[in-house]
């Protein structure tokens, strides 16, 4: 591989995961010439693409990730401050502009080189490559639980350390003393023998002309003073007094409002539109038909179908007028498609096994099942899920013939900007995107459909437009966590040992390892068949782990019970060669007081899930009474290698657990006559205060490579819940959501009891 040089592109080629051959881009030594104008104001010096220092000695982290609640911006700032030896009180952050200079390679790396550990010496070269690729693909993504473990670990810390060295270098020249006699602390430089000292700001301009080292010296974990501390989040004060700015809070001069409705059957077209009543209503400015548009997201591109928007002088008037439009949509021949027909299709395709692709094949499955003394089979099913971010998709846009400007909250600002440019027929430079706090993202806001709809409306109206989805539109026009069926077969030998594991499921997306199990089962046959539907799907917090975590950790529990074994001990015995996983499992059992007897009607269940580089163990305790399930308590343990902000990590894990629990208990999007049937929190509810469990989260700093925190809490809660319900009732929940399962005891379900209950 080539050397790290000042500029230019080396001739070596590398084949990336997409099959593209990319020249190894060499990251320029100092980006201030190309990016300085984007991010600096008066009195500010950009010292590194991720860091500027102003004349008051305040240092600002410029972060290529969006804030959707996860708090990563504060944690990334901690990483920068740590290596910079900065005074925490002088640190702040801002989000990077949607510019190629800030394309992030976090997901690029993850997607192209998943599971590959690079030797440190190669990292700069590979990063250069991925930087180029990320730029080309328009990646500036927040997702994949990547911010800290990739951007932070590989780039932000290096930026802080490099700038510290640059400041030392500049001071050394000015003071005429050797660099190794200068020390740094609290955003100041010190030369102790001469008694000189100066704030960083004094040398910021000189340091900005120094080329950063590509191998700055990073601190070791034992030296951290800012990392590892639970620093209060910088964004929180603005989120308690109403001043935090979300995209919907933007107001442009002369702005009007749009309400929108897209075809109920995904991909459908508008056959007939009568807008005469709507146009006659007061305040209505225009009714606009938007032809099928391309919506691209992290998991693919779709034709999103036609939509209609009403533009009015207030959002309320726009919504009212939208309601009286007479609309007729094509159903694309999907009017017979229902959730029932979709699951019938899955069942058929799994049984047929046509073109089954194999994830794992070890040992001879047929022989293993032949030799087994106990066989176990089960089919698991999960429904489609919507994201229901608290803030529905919305955007504000001004678009002319040769310019577009958009105010939005999204998970991929650069990608959105490119999507707009491509679909509006503009050059990238003609599109400006301002990104705001997101009121939840969870994967939904990585799809640019709502940005493009807004821009098209704004261009047609010729004035600034704010477009807002109603809650019904949000639920009906999502990119859903797919519905999935997964079929299992397990074989146990005479000693109750699990000797064979077979699994076939429909449709594989990301991450590839989601269906795999960590347990030492000698014979494994895990594979999948394609069974596509017309329902759009996308990334949903923890992506494929959200379904496979439920499937595999429930079925392993079934195997334990079939073997007559304790589900915790059964797992532990198969993890002898996986010390990190075993340590998490043991710790969560210990913290949850596993084995302590429980009252009648109560139960506890355990799960273990590795995802996004982190290992999470969970124990759920439930009470089941009269067929109703109460989740009393969730104990979680996470090993993410190292917690940069322990409180932030706990908040993320607990958030992920509630998100997963909402889905496991209540979440179900159904398809009727080809369209989504749900439309509000009344028929697509979430966990609320009165049914939220008590939670506790314990952190293991194992020192292993850093993992993510935003998603790993989610996959393990559904199986631990279902396992707890089995412990309480003897009934196995194999189809989510739990609320649909009949969990009444025989006595409770008997006609006499039912009559009394009625």
């Amino acid at each position, binding site marked *: 591989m080539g050397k790290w040089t000042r500029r230019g592109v080396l001739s070596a080629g590398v084949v990336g995961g997409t099959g593209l051959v990319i020249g190894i881009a060499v990251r320029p030594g100092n980006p201030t010439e190309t990016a300085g104008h984007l991010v600096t104001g008066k009195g500010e010096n950009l010292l590194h693409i991720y860091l500027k220092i102003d004349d008051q000695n305040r240092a600002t982290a410029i972060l290529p990730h969006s804030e959707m*609640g996860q708090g990563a911006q504060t944690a990334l700032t901690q990483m920068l401050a740590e290596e910079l030896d900065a005074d925490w009180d002088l640190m702040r952050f801002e989000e990077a502009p949607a510019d190629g200079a800030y394309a992030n390679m976090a997901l690029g790396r993850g997607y192209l080189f998943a599971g590959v550990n690079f030797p440190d010496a190669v990292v700069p070269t590979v990063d250069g490559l991925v930087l180029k690729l990320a730029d080309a693909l328009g990646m500036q993504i927040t997702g994949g639980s990547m911010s800290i473990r990739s951007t932070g670990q590989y780039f932000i810390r290096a930026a802080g350390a490099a700038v510290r060295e640059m400041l030392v270098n500049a001071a050394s020249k000015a003071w005429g003393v050797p660099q190794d006699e200068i020390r740094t602390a609290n955003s100041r430089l010190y030369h102790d023998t001469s008694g000189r000292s100066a704030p960083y700001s004094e040398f910021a301009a000189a340091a900005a002309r120094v080329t950063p080292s590509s191998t700055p010296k990073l601190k070791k974990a034992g030296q951290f003073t800012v990392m590892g501390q639970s620093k209060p989040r910088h964004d929180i004060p603005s989120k308690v007094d109403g001043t935090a700015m979300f995209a919907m809070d933007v107001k442009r001069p002369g702005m009007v409002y749009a309400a929108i409705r897209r075809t109920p059957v995904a991909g459908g077209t508008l056959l007939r539109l009568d807008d005469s009543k709507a146009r006659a209503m007061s305040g209505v400015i225009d009714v606009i038909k938007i032809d099928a548009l391309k919506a691209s997201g992290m998991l693919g591109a779709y034709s999103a179908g036609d939509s209609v928007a009403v533009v009015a002088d207030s959002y309320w008037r726009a919504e009212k007028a939208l309601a009286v439009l007479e609309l007729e949509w094509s159903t694309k021949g999907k009017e017979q498609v229902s959730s029932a027909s979709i699951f019938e299709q899955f069942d058929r395709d799994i049984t047929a096994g046509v073109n089954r692709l194999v994830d794992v094949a070890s040992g001879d499955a047929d022989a293993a099942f032949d030799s087994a003394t106990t066989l176990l089979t089960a089919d698991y099913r999960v429904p489609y899920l919507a994201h229901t971010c608290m803030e*529905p998709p919305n955007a504000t846009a001004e678009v002319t013939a040769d310019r577009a400007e958009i105010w939005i909250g999204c998970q991929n600002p650069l990608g959105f900007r490119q999507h707009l440019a491509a679909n509006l027929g503009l050059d990238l430079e003609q599109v400006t995107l301002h990104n705001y706090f997101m*009121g939840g993202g969870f994967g939904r806001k990585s799809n640019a459909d709502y940005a493009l709809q807004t821009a098209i409306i704004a261009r047609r109206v010729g004035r600034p437009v704010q477009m807002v989805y109603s809650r019904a539109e949000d639920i009906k026009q999502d990119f859903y966590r797919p519905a999935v069926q997964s079929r299992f077969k397990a074989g146990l030998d005479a000693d109750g040992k699990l000797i064979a594991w077979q699994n076939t499921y429909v449709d594989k997306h990301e991450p590839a390892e989601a269906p795999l199990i960590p347990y030492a089962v000698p014979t494994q046959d895990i594979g999948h068949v394609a069974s596509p539907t017309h329902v759009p799907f996308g990334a949903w917090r923890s992506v494929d782990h959200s379904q496979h975590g439920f499937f595999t950790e429930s079925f392993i529990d079934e195997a334990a019970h079939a073997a007559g074994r304790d589900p915790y001990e059964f797992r532990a015995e198969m993890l002898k060669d996986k010390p990190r996983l075993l340590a998490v499992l043991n710790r969560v059992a210990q913290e949850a007081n596993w084995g302590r007897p429980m009252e009648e009607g109560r139960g506890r269940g355990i799960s273990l899930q590795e995802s996004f580089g982190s290992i999470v163990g969970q124990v759920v305790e439930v009470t089941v009474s009269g067929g109703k399930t109460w989740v009393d308590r969730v104990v979680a343990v996470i090993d993410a290698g190292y917690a940069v902000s322990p409180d932030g990590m706990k908040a993320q894990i607990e*958030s992920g657990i509630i998100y997963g629990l909402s889905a496991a208990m209540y979440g179900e999007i159904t398809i009727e006559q080809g369209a989504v049937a749900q439309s509000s929190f*009344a028929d697509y509810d979430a966990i*609320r205060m009165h049914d939220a469990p008590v939670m506790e989260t314990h952190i293991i700093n194992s020192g292993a490579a850093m993992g993510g925190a935003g998603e790993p809490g989610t996959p393990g809660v559904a199986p631990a819940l279902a396992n707890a319900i089995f412990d309480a009732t003897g009934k196995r929940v194999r189809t989510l959501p739990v609320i649909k399962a009949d969990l009444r005891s025989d006595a409770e379900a008997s006609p006499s009891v039912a009559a009394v209950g009625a």
Partner: protein
Amino acid sequence: MTTFTLNGEVRTVNTDPETPALWVIREQLDLTGTKFGCGMAQCGACTIHVNGRAQRSCITPVSSLEGASVTTIEGLKGADGTLHALQQAWIDQQVPQCGYCQSGQLMSAAALLAENPSPSDSDIDNAMRGNVCRCGMYGRIRSAIKQVADASFYDAMEGNQNG
């Protein structure tokens, strides 16, 4: 024409009388701290105080506010800018993640404490069950309410804090 007091100031608006207060407050009166979440009183993001009681502004016709005293999240602070005890507790407990629902959570909690300065867990459940938080910060919200409960008394009618 509807005239009411908003965060201590008399305001008059001229709009369709059935327009929900949420949109009047956000679009015409430019106070954007009150959030749109569902438009059907199912999520609580739009909660305001009307004469001291928590109310979902997304289904409150503006005409019903005639003569009323209305407080939004922007008016929860004291007149001197001091944070309401709950706002400080929200910071102390690091409650918000995305933060979008928190204006509504705070307004519901403030109305609860105004009426019941030392709520039980089930009182908190009942007062807060109308407020969805998709980031799932219910445990922290409960801790923050308890931090303030008993410690002070909030007068929602006056929009300030006593004792």
